[in-house]
């Protein structure tokens, strides 16, 4: 009976801590959403200050009548101050109405296509980057000071010095001879799939995968370099820690001690790092989308800035910020699973 009672009490304690954990996750999500909203407001304000959608009308020959310019300004909501204009846009955005582009098209129609393209581009690259980045970091830390470790660190430093917009083109340049030798585009340079092809099923998937290889490498390489450096430092700290020595002292072999006790501790600092740096990697991906002709969020944003289209800039920024929030929240969740101390 007593053991049963103890078991019940233990169960109750567990569920209470689970409730606290879920509460903490929700609080983190709310905080992240708040920051994301502030960032979109900031972008909208910057765009409203900087863009002049009426410039073209003012410089036409013969001159456009002032009444037409005024009417256009009213139609675009330019007679309102920035904050109410943002409020109007946000009220629409919450219900899925993102307003219209500067040339009068509905934005909502393009949202899912743009977001989908970016996710298809970033998901494989990002997952590979985290896996390989952490892998290389741990691998290097366990043989710190060896030639292999020094080489991998030097490579990482070099990769981080190569701008993202150079890396994509360099990959094309390196692969070009292979495509030429094959006489066909083994790995195509542009777009998500071969345009106008009527492939279906496995052939279509294969076609998409072949389009994905080079951009994925371009997205993953700098991130692998970035994560591996941090992971190496984190693992080095764990390697020299007391608890790992204690585990060895208990008679565990080095590999088993590292796997069972060290790995979890070394991975803990990586969760917030991924959350914190994802926005920067997403910004780097804007170049990758451009170079490989993927019409995702980044490409949309840059085009919108060129066209001085505030609504599209706000929509693209909001979607990118939501992606950052989602990744950040996944990192919060990972931290909760990795680190029992965050659960109490």
């Amino acid at each position, binding site marked *: 009976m007593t053991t049963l009672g103890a078991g019940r009490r233990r169960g109750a304690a567990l569920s209470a801590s689970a409730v606290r954990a879920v509460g903490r996750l929700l609080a983190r999500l709310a905080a992240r959403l708040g*920051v*994301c909203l*502030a*960032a979109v407001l*900031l*972008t909208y304000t*910057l*765009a409203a*200050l*900087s*863009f*002049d959608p009426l410039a073209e009308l003012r410089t036409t020959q013969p001159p456009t009548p002032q009444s037409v310019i005024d009417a256009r300004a009213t139609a675009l909501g330019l007679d309102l101050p920035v904050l109410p204009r943002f409020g109007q846009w946000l009220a629409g955005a919450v219900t899925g109405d993102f307003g219209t582009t500067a040339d009068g098209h509905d934005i909502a129609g393009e949202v899912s296509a743009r977001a989908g393209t970016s996710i298809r581009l970033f998901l494989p690259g990002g997952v590979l980057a985290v896996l390989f980045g952490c892998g290389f970091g741990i691998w290097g830390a366990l043989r710190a000071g060896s030639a292999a470790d020094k080489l991998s660190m030097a490579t990482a*430093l*070099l990769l*981080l*010095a*190569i*701008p*993202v*917009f*150079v890396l994509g*083109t*360099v990959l*094309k*340049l390196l692969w*070009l001879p292979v495509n030429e030798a094959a006489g066909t585009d083994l790995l195509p340079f542009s777009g998500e799939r071969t345009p106008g092809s009527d492939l279906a099923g496995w052939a279509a998937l294969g076609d998409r995968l072949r389009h994905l290889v080079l951009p994925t490498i371009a997205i993953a390489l700098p991130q692998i370099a970035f994560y591996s450096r941090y992971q190496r430092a984190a693992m080095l700290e764990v390697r020299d820690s007391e608890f790992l020595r204690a585990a060895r002292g208990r008679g565990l072999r080095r590999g088993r001690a590292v796997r069972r006790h060290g790995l979890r501790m070394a991975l803990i600092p990586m969760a917030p790092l991924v959350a*914190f740096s994802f*926005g*920067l990697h*997403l*910004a780097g991906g*804007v*170049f990758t989308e*451009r*170079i490989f002709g993927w019409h995702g969020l980044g490409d949309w*944003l*840059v085009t919108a*800035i*060129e066209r*001085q289209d505030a609504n599209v*800039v706000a929509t693209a*920024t909001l979607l990118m*910020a939501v992606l*950052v929030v989602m990744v950040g929240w996944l990192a919060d969740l990972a931290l909760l699973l990795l680190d029992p101390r965050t659960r109490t």
Partner: protein
Amino acid sequence: MNVHRPIALTGAGLLALLVLAASVGPLLLPFTHTDQDLRNVLAAPSGAHPLGTARLGEDMLALCLRGLQKSLVIGLLAAVLTTALSALVGTVAGYLGGVADRVLMMVVDVLLVLPPILAVAVLSPALRGSSWLVLVLLIATFQWMVTSRVVRARARSLRVAGYVVAAENTGASTTRIVTRHLLPQMVPLLAIDCTLNVASAVLAEAGLSYFGFGVQPPDVSLGTLVATGTGSALTFPWVFLAPVGFLTATVLAAAMLGEGLRDDA
């Protein structure tokens, strides 16, 4: 800080070499970056043009050195500004704590979500025709956040240090404590971050110029040169690879120096 580590020394040497090349190099060349050798348009590297020529027969080496000049000046200025701003915000927030700290860190959080390159890009239509100095200001405005976090953490831990408390007890003003007692303590940390910020600022400038949002023609920077070169990278690779080489070398040199200094700071 140990400046004698090989990685720091290599970085410093490479950086010095690049600064020297950018400042003295153009004087030694027989061409300026605008001279057109119209009989050798888009020519491959040769004795006369060691890095080949561009679309209008401009010497690639002259173009790259000119671009390197602009990139280095922008990078160095932006890095100094970035570091100064983050030092100020970080120390004030860390030392004062309370409401000031919370407000400043909220600003940091919001700005951190917005990648600097996108923020400056959004502002670029308003900047058409303004000087490149505005670009420097903007890069600094959107890049100080990470360093300020580090500085803040250091300032918070120094708040209870004996000499700071002693200064408080003698009635020193906040301004005096921040400028005379806290900031000097941060100099090694700030020097390292400034070096690393040079690398980020050079990359930011290049990225912005790549999209046409940064340095405007007829000015050239390494970013604009890479952008022009990208179009013909697969047909006339030297037009692309020459500025890429200089850009990578610059960023790598600054990063190596910063890393070498940091490891044992």
